């Protein structure tokens, strides 16, 4: 029978997992850099909590309780292995701490350092976001694998290889300072945004775990923005994600059909989230320097204008993509720039801009490129070529709602 005590215990454990997991991992692994060991100890501590709390009540400070148990597990595990000097010093230090009253222990927040370790240049780019989701938020490998479309066993291996690298290569949990911070911050931002993009690409409501992933990425973005309140790019990234998230519900019609941004009912946008995003962007613009995420947030802000003005500010969007192209050289930015040109100068001009990037192999399998091309060809009356481009877009799309939308467009030619 489920009792209130069990429910309360589960809720407390979930709350502690959400808010303290990364803090506890960072703290437990700080000196040994043994993330996997810290995670194992923590998962045992959570299991112990679920057994103990329903019977004895939720402790006054659940984090401290978890820390005590995890520390004991870590010390026990350490005793069974032969340790190098560093690790045994770390365990001795942990044991000293044990003597104190855990109720009064404040766990230092080492999550920022952990984020920087996860996005370290020594870690493969593709595994940085998954590593963050696991080490800072406690996601399991199978869930992460599904979101990133990788076999679970492969994801498990990649994560464990990355953790071994952190330990063996001595990737520290220190937060870089000054110029080094500016240099390494983009990698942290990119990884958080990659997690958001994986969550976002999932059609609304189709996969609860993945929808959750977009929320979790925003949570990481908030954490980062709160820890680095004067970094324009950290604020810009959060603004970007909130702007996109505000339109989440509007992306699908009543019957689950796909609704492109231009056709979305602005009444279904989340005004509160847009306002928060705007405030963040204003703060970001007041910071020194600028970067990709501020520009992308500004693009979203220019789209949000449609809510009041009835039309997105396509001139601003075009200029912002000019800047993004110059800054990043990304073919996706060039694609979006061409779409903006089509809005301000007509479909023929847009097509000319698309022709400039038509040979880029990175776009050959990229559905939005073909969909944009098809749309512009259709508007210039090139029906045959439009139909061909639509077929390519349909063949590359994985979301059934978007696929249906493209098929309807093609049929209407």
């Amino acid at each position, binding site marked *: 029978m489920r009792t209130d005590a069990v429910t309360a215990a589960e809720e407390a454990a979930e709350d502690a997992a959400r808010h303290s997991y990364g803090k506890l991992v960072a703290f437990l692994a700080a000196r040994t850099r043994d993330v996997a060991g810290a995670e194992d100890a923590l998962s045992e501590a959570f299991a112990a909590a679920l057994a103990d709390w329903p019977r004895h009540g939720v402790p006054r400070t659940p984090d401290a309780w978890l820390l005590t148990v995890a520390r004991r597990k870590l010390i026990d595990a350490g005793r069974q292995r032969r340790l190098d000097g560093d690790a045994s010093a770390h365990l001795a230090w942990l044991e000293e701490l044990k003597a104190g009253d855990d109720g009064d222990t404040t766990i230092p927040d080492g999550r920022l350092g952990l984020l920087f370790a996860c996005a370290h240049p020594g870690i493969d780019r593709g595994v940085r976001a998954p590593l963050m989701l696991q080490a800072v938020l406690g996601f399991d490998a199978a869930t992460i694998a599904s979101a990133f479309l990788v076999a679970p066993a492969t994801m498990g291996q990649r994560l464990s290889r990355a953790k071994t690298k952190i330990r063996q290569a001595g990737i520290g949990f220190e937060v870089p300072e000054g110029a080094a911070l500016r240099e390494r911050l983009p990698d942290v931002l990119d990884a958080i945004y990659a997690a958001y993009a994986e969550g976002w690409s999932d059609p609304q409501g189709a996969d609860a775990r993945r929808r959750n992933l977009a929320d979790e990425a925003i949570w990481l973005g908030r954490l980062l923005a709160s820890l680095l309140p004067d970094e324009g790019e950290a604020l810009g990234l959060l603004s970007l994600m909130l702007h996109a998230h505000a339109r989440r519900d509007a992306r699908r019609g009543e019957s689950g059909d796909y609704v492109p941004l231009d056709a979305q009912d602005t009444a279904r946008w989340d005004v509160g989230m847009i306002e928060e995003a705007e405030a963040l962007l204003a703060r970001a613009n007041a910071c020194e320097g600028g970067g990709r995420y501020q520009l992308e947030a500004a693009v979203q802000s220019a789209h949000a204008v449609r809510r009041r003005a009835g039309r997105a500010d396509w001139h601003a969007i075009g200029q912002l993509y000019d800047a993004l192209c110059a800054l990043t050289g990304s073919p996706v930015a060039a694609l979006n720039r061409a779409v903006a040109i089509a809005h301000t100068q007509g479909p023929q001009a847009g097509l000319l801009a698309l022709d400039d990037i038509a040979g880029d192999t990175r776009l050959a399998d990229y559905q939005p490129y073909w969909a944009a091309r098809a749309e512009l060809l259709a508007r210039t009356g090139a029906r045959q070529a439009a139909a061909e481009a639509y077929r390519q877009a349909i*063949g590359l799309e994985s979301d059934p709602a978007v696929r249906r939308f493209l098929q309807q467009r093609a049929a209407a030619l």
Partner: protein
Amino acid sequence: MEYLLLVYSDNKQFDTLTPAQQAEGLAAYGAYAEALQKAGVMRGGNRLRPQETATTVRMRSGKTEVLNGPYAETREQLGGYFLIDVPNLDAALSWASRCPGASHGTMEVRPVWAMGEN
């Protein structure tokens, strides 16, 4: 590396669709096969007739047995396949996710074990 993408789905579901929906579904497969071609990864692929049309053959105690029906009767049945050549499993999964079968059924991705390969 070659991978076989197996499309498992409930073909009774397909029978309940309107002719227009069926045509749309098949056109999506056509577009998918074309995208595989254009990407230069397509090695082969076809739709299979339903499992009611299957016949199984086996040799037991020196005698052949020929039976009507599939090897294993399941609600979700093998409805078709694509053979693709891509650099690794990640790429194979990416293509599998784009197959219409991933949304109306389930895709199974199997690496080809070439003759003579260990």
